[in-house]
Structures are given as C-alpha cells and as structure tokens.
C-alpha cells in the first residue's frame, strides 16, 4: 500500500507541476469551459423564453451545470492525453520499470485529474457567480452537484486512461475525446429534455448523461430529481471504466 501511494504521489506531483507551470496545459483547460459558458449564456439566453422552458433558476444556472459536468469529464480526457504523451516520449516505459506498484500510476493520474478539475471548477464557479448566476439549492444540494461532477471526472479519467494504455500514442486523442464529446452534446444541452424534438429527443432519452444533467440542474434549483439514478449511473461508469483502465494497464505492461 505504501508503495502504491508513493508511486501515486510521484506521478500526480509530476502531472500537476506540468499543469500549473506550463500555460500550454493550464490555459486550454481553463479557457474551454469558460468559453462554452460565455458563448451559451451570452448567445442563447433568449432560449429560456421558448414556450415550455420551465427552469426557474435561470438560463445561467441551466448552462452552468452543463459546463461544470463537461469540464469534469474533459479534465479526465485531458489527463488521458497526458498519459498518451508520456507513452510517446518514452517516459511511461521508464516509469513502469521504476514503479514498485504500477496500480499507483493509475491512482496518481486519477488524483491529478481530480485536482485539475477542482481548479477549473473553482474558476468556472467564480465566473458564474460574477455573471450573477442564481442558486436556489441549499448547501446539501450543491454538495450533491459537485460530488456528481467529481464522480464524472473520475469516470472520464478512467475511460481516457484505458484508451491511452491500450493505444499508447497521442494519435489516440480523438478516440478518447469524441465519445465523451458526443455523449455530452447528445444530452439536453440547450433546452430541457421535454423541449427536444425528433431524433435528438430519442437519443437524449437513452443517453446516460441526461439523468446526470437533470439531477445537476435539480440540485442547483433546489428541486432534486433523478439524484439516485444519476449517482447510480456514475458509480456504474466508474466501476466499468475502472476495470477498463486496470486491464489497459495490464495490456501496456504486457506490451513492454
């Protein structure tokens, strides 16, 4: 256990050091969620006047939940990019040779992804509050919202780690990114599920991200709904992608 923690600490320190000291890593992670938040809230706020749009807390809060969950998932994906980069540079091979417990590698990347996301979430939250976002939920509701996002961050990290460990090249970036992007955007991003029409309504209805978004929006508006389903889905994703990541690590070990 001590070996695992020592490896995890080393890996996460290295990733976080690069993240906080290299603007090329820090700025895109911060800029993209802020940019989506600004574009959606600024450009689409009129959408809240569509007949049937019934979200009392306002369009800023409605989009904030999406951006928060998106930033959580993408912090995990960006960590996967870093793992792929470590394979390309040969660092991962040396790390695997040096690590007494390789499971610590996964733990280290997961921890660093969490810290990365917490940094981004703090900035996005401050910006949203400066934009006069209304919050109708209480402290417990908000704890639920951020916990849900945190669990999604872990699921995203494990997914991207599994891909990076199997493909071991930066060219795998679209494989990590595209499914996450599609899952997020095939959910009710701009309007509530009830206002979606046609094929997108069918897709969003079976999209596992939809209950997460609805639960998150329920938390921020102080009217929790689908919370149990949302947490069950994220725990399921973590279990599935955890296995995927561990088997990916074994695959990388076997490949030498």
């Amino acid at each position, binding site marked *: 256990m001590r070996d695992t923690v020592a490896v995890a600490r080393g890996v996460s320190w290295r990733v976080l050091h690069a993240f906080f000291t290299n603007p090329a890593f820090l700025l895109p992670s911060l800029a993209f969620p802020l*940019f989506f938040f600004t574009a959606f809230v600024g450009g689409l706020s009129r959408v809240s006047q569509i007949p049937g749009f019934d979200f009392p807390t306002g369009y800023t809060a409605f989009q904030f939940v999406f951006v928060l969950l998106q930033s959580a998932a993408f912090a995990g994906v960006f960590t996967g990019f870093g793992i792929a980069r470590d394979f390309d540079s040969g660092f991962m091979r040396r790390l695997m040779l040096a690590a007494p417990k390789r499971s610590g590698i996964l733990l280290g990347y997961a921890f660093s992804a969490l810290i990365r996301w917490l940094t981004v979430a703090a900035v996005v939250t401050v910006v949203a509050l400066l934009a006069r976002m209304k919050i109708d939920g209480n402290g417990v509701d908000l704890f639920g919202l951020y916990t849900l996002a945190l669990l999604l961050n872990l699921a995203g990290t494990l997914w991207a780690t599994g891909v990076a460990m199997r493909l071991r090249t930066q060219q795998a970036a679209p494989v990590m990114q595209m499914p996450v992007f599609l899952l997020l955007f095939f959910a009710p991003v701009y309007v509530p599920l009830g206002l979606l029409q046609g094929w*997108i309504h069918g*897709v969003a209805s079976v999209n596992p991200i939809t209950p997460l978004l609805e639960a998150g929006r329920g938390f921020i508006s102080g009217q929790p709904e689908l919370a149990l389903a949302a947490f069950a889905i994220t725990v399921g994703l973590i279990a599935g992608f955890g296995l995927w990541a561990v088997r990916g690590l074994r695959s990388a070990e076997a490949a030498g």
Partner: protein
Amino acid sequence: MSDALIQAATLGRRAVVRTARQPANVIFPLIFPMLLLAVNAGGLRSATRLPGFPTDSFLAFALAIPFVQGALLATINANVEFARDIQTGFLNRLALTPVRGIVLLVGQLGGLITIAVAQAVFYLAVAVAFGVRLEAGVGGAAMILLLEVAIALGFAALGSWAALRTGSTEAVQGLFPVFFVFLFLSSMNMPRNLIQTDWFRWVATINPVSYLIEAVRSLVIEGWNWEALGLGFAAAGGLSLVGFALATHALWRRLERT
C-alpha cells in the same frame, strides 16, 4: 507569367495531395462540422418557436456554420503542414530555386482553397440530402461556393501569416481555439436581433465572422439578400487583404533570414 502559374499550380497541388494523404486531415473536417450541425440543429430546434425567428428549420438556419468551420479546419490543417515545411527546411530549399516568394504564397493559398471548396460541396450535398432547400436556388449554391472561396482565402491568409511568422506547427495549432472563439462569439446560433445579452450582441456585431455566417445563411433561408452578401464579401475581403499583406511581409522577412 506562365512559369509563375505552373509553379503556383504545382505548389497548390502539393498542398492538396499532402492533405489528401492524411485521412485524419480529410475525415475530421468533413465529419466534425456535420456532427456539430446535427447537435445544434437537434438541440435548438425549439428555438424556431421564438417570436421573430427567421425560419422554421433550425437545420437550414445553422447550415452556414459548417462552411465557416470547415474553412477554419482546412486552414489549420494546411498551415500546420506549411509550418512543417518551414521547420524541416523545405522552404529554405525552395528559396534557392527560381520560384518567387509571392508564387509560393499563392500556391499554398490555392491548395487550401481547393480543399475548402471540396468540403463545402460535401456540406451542401449532405444538407440537401437531409431536406434543406436553398431559397436562392441553384444559383445560390454556386454563390455559397464563391463565398466559401472568399472565406477560406481570408482564414488561409491569416493562417499562412501565423505559419510564416512563427515557423512552428504548435503555434499554428494554437490558432484553432482563437479562431473558434470568433466563431462562438458570433451570430452562429441566434440571429443578432434576437440575442438578449447586450454585450454579446455587441461582440457579435463587431465580429466579422457574424457577417460571413449571415451571408451564407441569407442564401439558404432568405434568397438573394444583397446587403447580407455584400457585408459577407466585404468581411471576407477585408480578412483576405489583411491576412495576405501580413503573410507577404512575413514571407519576405523569412526569406531574408535564409
């Protein structure tokens, strides 16, 4: 003169072939804008119920976006390759030949425009297959392709300037989010008169990308709106002029250094 044309055509062909040989550079600019179009058209379909929304089809309304986005993606991909030519010393070797600097730039831009127009034909075909009818008719489709040439030229010239100025593939790739900021802070998802947030409407109004989108959009949902077309061509022409002047200057500076 004919030598210059042959040289420009050869360099343009090289830019096209090099892109075509990399499937990721071909498939991504075709598929990604279509995916975003599908997402936006599906997700914002109910926005057509807003009073004053100019059409009852969000797919038709949003169709202009892939044309601008595709030009952006083509620009980034082709100019990354251009920057690689600088990094690998190809440009230095070319400078030792009788090829004139301006021909080199024209060839590069010509190749990029060819790629962007091929993409535009694909977007139009997909849109028509999904039931979009251009209000401006067949002539409107031809005008959209002409607009795409102007739009691609504007972005391509700016991308070439970045490539020549920095000589770095990373720097050119770094332009991707910058260009996308302009795209997202435009009237891409909502007509400007329906944008509720004052500062956003102001940014969208001074953002030239809004006029590029509105010019293409007018042909799809309105017919022949000469004001929108004039503003679109003016915006594209302005970007092209500025980009070409900057790129030409950067090219001279770079050839001086060699």
